[in-house]
């Protein structure tokens, strides 16, 4: 059957185009401001195409110590967090995918309960503090190492693998770790890729735990620094430690918007890879046993 566009199709396409435009326009504007001299954007005489191009903002940021340190911190936190989260989530989810494992239901219940009830912000803070993690990267990484949702999704993937597979390996005399490492994990590439990217996004975007657990601003990842950089123009910085003075003095709209762009750059870079998997990954979570 040949598709014939009706007025109905046209209206739908137009509305979706408008919505997509509403999503894209802010990005284009941010990019344009970051490449414009501050005077231009404050006078507002362009919208998405700069009148005069300049790389000042980027060369400034790439030479600003505070900014580079925060990028370094973010990279470390993202790397640590991703590796740890993958390890903790995969091992636990794998064990829980084994229906013959005594105690499995109890463990599932213990994990599931954390989805509907939790101690809250202050008790979490006290635990992190009592473990002596304040001002260390671990304070950001450890409390976020996994979640009930992650475990459920990864587990349901493992359960979808044929059981006969590891039984065959067992007959051949392979140990359980060997089975996981050389048979199950290679077969789980899609789910591992999905979660690697999810965890990377999660830790790169980490903001609040850095604010409350890292008093030493030299340990700050990029998100809290970005918040202070942009909040200056909104004149609503709260009582927290201010950014370093030289950075604050040089903040024009171009620098602020360049910082916004650099803070989302890794996300925009992994997004095309993420995109291939996430719809499926997100759906796995809603499938019930």
């Amino acid at each position, binding site marked *: 059957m040949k598709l014939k566009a009706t007025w109905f*199709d046209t209206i739908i396409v137009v509305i979706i185009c408008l919505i997509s435009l509403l999503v894209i326009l*802010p990005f284009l504007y941010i990019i344009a401001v970051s490449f414009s001299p501050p005077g231009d954007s404050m006078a507002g005489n362009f919208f998405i195409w700069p009148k005069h191009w300049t790389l000042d903002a980027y060369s400034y940021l790439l030479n600003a110590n505070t900014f580079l340190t925060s990028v370094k911190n973010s990279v470390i936190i993202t790397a640590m967090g991703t590796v740890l989260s993958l390890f903790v989530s995969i091992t636990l989810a794998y064990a829980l995918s084994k229906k013959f494992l005594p105690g499995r239901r109890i463990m599932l219940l213990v994990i599931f309960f954390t989805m509907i009830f*939790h101690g809250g912000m202050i008790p979490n803070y006290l635990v992190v503090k009592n473990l002596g993690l304040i001002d260390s990267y671990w304070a950001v990484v450890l409390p976020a190492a996994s979640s009930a949702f992650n475990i459920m999704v990864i587990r349901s993937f493992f359960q979808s693998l044929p059981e006969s597979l590891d039984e065959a390996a067992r007959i051949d005399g392979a140990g*359980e770790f060997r089975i996981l490492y050389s048979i199950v994990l290679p077969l789980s590439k899609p789910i591992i890729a999905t979660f690697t990217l999810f965890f990377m996004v999660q830790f790169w975007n980490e903001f609040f735990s850095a604010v409350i657990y890292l008093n030493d601003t030299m340990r700050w990842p990029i998100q809290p620094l970005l918040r202070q950089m942009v909040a200056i123009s909104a004149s609503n910085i*709260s009582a927290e430690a201010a950014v370093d003075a030289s950075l604050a003095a040089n903040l024009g709209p171009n620098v602020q918007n360049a910082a916004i762009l650099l803070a*989302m750059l890794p996300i925009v870079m992994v997004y095309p890879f993420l995109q291939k998997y996430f*719809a499926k990954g997100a759906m796995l979570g809603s499938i019930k046993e």
Partner: protein
Amino acid sequence: MQRALRPKRFHQLWPFYLLAAPGILYFLTFHYIPMTGLILAFKEYSPFKGMMDSPWVGLDNFRQFFGTSDFYMLLKNTLLISLLNLIIYFPFTIFLSLLLNEVRLKVFKRVSQTIVYLPHFLSWVVIYGITISFFGPSGVINHYLGQWFDGSANFLVSNEWFRPLVIFQSIWKDAGWGTIIFLAALAGINPEQYEAAKVDGASRLQSIWHITLPGIKGTIVILLLLRLGSSMDSNFMQIFLMTNSLNLDVSNVFDLFVYHVGLEQFNYSFAITVGMFKSVASLILVLGANYAAKLLGEEGIF
């Protein structure tokens, strides 16, 4: 035969327990030990005496909390934001799903989905930064307001604009992402129904009304109940960033209050009391939502 292949005895099972151990240890340390901290809600925490030896005060903290006007303000602000999300953001997501579902050109559909999913992956700080670029005192909106209408508005520091901005941010960030689950439900509708309707002379709008919407009714009900169940939770990160001393009357929600009282004023016991009230109320709402789902003949959330 089957049985021999499955590990049954402890010497065969220990590898699985060893694999589970780090994860279980994580959940106990960072999810269950904090729950023990909730007893501080019934104590007057003294940093010198520690958690165990601080004196009991019974329900004093709760009495104090419910007795203040803060309680009603927090409840009102929290519920209002949830309610507005429920009546604006939620239907918009369904609307967007229906639109995307009606697109017949596959390439166009894929491209537009890619675009509308993207903001979901940005941090709230980035969204906040973009918001300032647009709605800040020297933002582009104010610039054009000044140019065209001879005026400006203090969007970020006013009570009136706080809620509209927050709802708009939520839609911009997550409405696209929210369509995934509806689109999956829509894909499950039997295409024969549409063909039959077409033969009967139904228009596209009529088939949406009589086939598509009833087809995703179950999903809508479940997601709606889930949202109702979490209406005590505001999107804390978003609110935290958008709040300031000038819009505190409308932006102060439970989580924010807990942060100010606990981590800025170091009044742990009182902050935990507020947090605990919120957690318990949430638990009741979630369980209630699940019960309601089952009453409506849906499968329930768990």
